[in-house]
């Protein structure tokens, strides 16, 4: 599905955010991406959507390079940033319709998906309210509905659980699993190690832009838990 090959990214101030990073995400993978603040997680995720350019390496979605054909790749992906920056002057529904128009979602599909997702995330009554009046968690939910409404093959989430209420927290985990069960994949970064350990089948641990460990979670953990492994790797 998604192949990150030798990704290297240096910021204009000289800071090397990602160094020679390679990860492969297969169909059906629920991939957790963990690391300390400033480790390079967000930079990597943004590079997957060409939000940031990268210096060397390549990112391929189903064999198509994101560098050479970004629009085709992005049609099959969806992204939810860590802090939901949305158009505050639109209502929730107007924003979702806008996203669906961008992804060319038919009227019938968008109606079904938006109603279903907004009911599951407890947003149906708020769809006609201005986004400017939403709380952080509600904005996050609208971002998630927008990301899932066009049924992406790959969902990329940056700290998706921040600000969500417990109900939406559980629902999001279910939605991620459902997407993976239907053949899609999810790549998400998180600091909540417990969630990563319980929901993901694969993880990647990153430090100072370099990959420390990646692969099947069972193989990485063995008999330990993720918290111990993470602390141990970061001490090195």
């Amino acid at each position, binding site marked *: 599905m998604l192949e990150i090959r030798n990704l290297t990214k240096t910021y204009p*101030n000289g800071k090397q955010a990602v160094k020679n990073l390679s990860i492969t995400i297969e169909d059906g993978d629920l991939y957790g991406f963990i690391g300390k603040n400033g480790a390079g997680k967000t930079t990597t995720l*943004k590079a997957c*959507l*060409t*939000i940031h*350019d990268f210096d060397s390496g390549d990112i391929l979605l189903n064999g198509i390079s994101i560098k050479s054909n*970004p*629009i*085709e790749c*992005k*049609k099959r*992906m*969806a*992204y939810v*940033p860590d802090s939901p*920056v*949305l*158009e*505050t*002057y*639109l*209502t929730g*529904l*107007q924003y979702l*319709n*806008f*996203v*669906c*128009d*961008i*992804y*060319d*979602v*038919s*009227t019938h599909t*968008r*109606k079904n998906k*938006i*109603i279903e997702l907004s009911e599951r995330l407890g947003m*149906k*009554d708020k*769809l*006609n*309210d*201005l986004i*400017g*009046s939403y709380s952080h968690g509600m904005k996050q939910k609208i971002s998630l509905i927008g990301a899932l409404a066009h049924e992406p093959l790959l969902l990329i989430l940056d700290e998706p659980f921040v600000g969500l209420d417990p109900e939406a927290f559980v629902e999001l985990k279910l939605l991620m699993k459902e997407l993976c069960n239907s053949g899609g994949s999810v790549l998400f970064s998180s600091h909540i190690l417990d969630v990563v350990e319980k929901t993901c089948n694969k993880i990647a641990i990153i430090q100072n832009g370099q990959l420390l460990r990646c692969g099947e979670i069972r193989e990485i953990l063995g008999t330990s838990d993720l918290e111990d492994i993470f602390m141990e790797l970061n001490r090195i």
Partner: protein
Amino acid sequence: MKIFKILIFKQAQEIFKFNTLFYGDKKEKKRYLLIFCAVVLCIGVCGTYLFGNMYQVCMEFEKPQEILEYLINPLGLLAFLIIFFSSLLKGSGMLYSDRSSDILFSYPVKTICIVLAKIFFLYLWGVIISLAFLIIPILRYTILLHSILFGILDCLQIFIFPIIPMLLGVISGYILYKQIVNIYKSQVFVRSILYMVILFAFMFFMFFFFGKVDLNSIYRHILTKVDITYLVGGVFFTYKVGAALASVVALISGTVLIIYISKNYKKRYINLQINQQKGSSLNLSFKKNRKIYSLWKREIKRYLSIPIYLINTMLGNVLLLLFVIYSSIASEKVTAYFNLISELLEIQDPMVLYSYAMSLMIILTNVSYANISIEGKNREVLKSFPVSIKELLTAKYLFHLSLTVPMICLATIILGITYHMNSYEYFLCFILPLSFSAFAGALGLFINLLFPNYEWENIIYIVKQSIPAISTICLSCLIGVGMIWCIIKIFGHSIWSASYIVACILFAFAFLIIQFMKKISNNF
């Protein structure tokens, strides 16, 4: 007092942003220093001009009573009104729309301390206004009175003078702010429409009525008919006991008003933050639109929801509308005026001037120079969508044209009917302003893409003060005026053909700029 000082310091950091100078990167430091120097220079020039003039005027008076009557009283009233209205506009924002108050309420700090810290700089502004208007007349008044003691007291009273207008302004500002918030919450575009109506009414007044207003006679009328001696200055700045009494009353009233504001502050602040939106209906619409249309619609909605953006870029349309209205009402006057211009510039056919006037006005309505920077932090989400830069720029360009083209059409039709234009004149009135608008729009987009700023904190910066804003307006006006000047001076003998050729050249320029934009699309 210690906490008050800390809060004042925080407030100063927020307003003056001097941390940028100490901790910002090189680019930020440079920009800060540049802005700082420009502001200091402006204040220096304006201050010198004001004080110089004030000194000259003051030296004309030989009697203290005259100074009091003709300068201190009216200027005191003016300072009072300026302080009141600036507090009305700024004070409510400082107190009630600043989200940082949430965290301040959680600290072990008295509400009165928070209120005082928040309005401290407003008070300082009031003192500056009072000093600017009153210090020289008061010094002259004191010298003429030969009373140094009262002079010192009068100077001290300048610091008491702003308290009442400032606090009254803050209280009135809250009432106004509450109404605006309620209107805004019920309909997001109402505020923009309101601002637009105010701008139009202001321009209408300035163009059609301001010339008839005789400020001199109004000033004299106020001085002779209305006794303002005991309104403002006359109470505060005299050497009578009344002045001391007025100061004491002002201090007591000020304290009462401060206590009143503090007592209600928390409750009012929270009430304004609570979402007062009425329960929205559940009529959900899921209509599918084309990508470009959806992007264009988003631009329109954003434009109408940001009044500052709207009123700063609508000037051309407003001017054109006023021109059309005036031309319809007083067509003979406009014709006579244009005939006069055509005689002066040796233009054979004055009808051509209508298209030039329209073109020069419409060039002032340009939204494209801020249209890329305005994405700000939203840019990352937009970049994650499958939208090509070409589609995005097309939507933004169409948005620019959709603001000017209907106005050009309307103006052409009305002017055409009013002045009985033939098809040749009609078409030029449409095509020339359109070419100007198309060119200015493409130029704005290009410059904005060349110098984007996605890290803005205040929209005023990208709409009014950024490099793309200034350079686009200056360049498009220069090129526009230059082109028309060339037509008149060089191709005056075949002015109609030359005008059509200029329209074609501008369209070609616009096309070339759009083509060249693809090369710098990485900047987005």
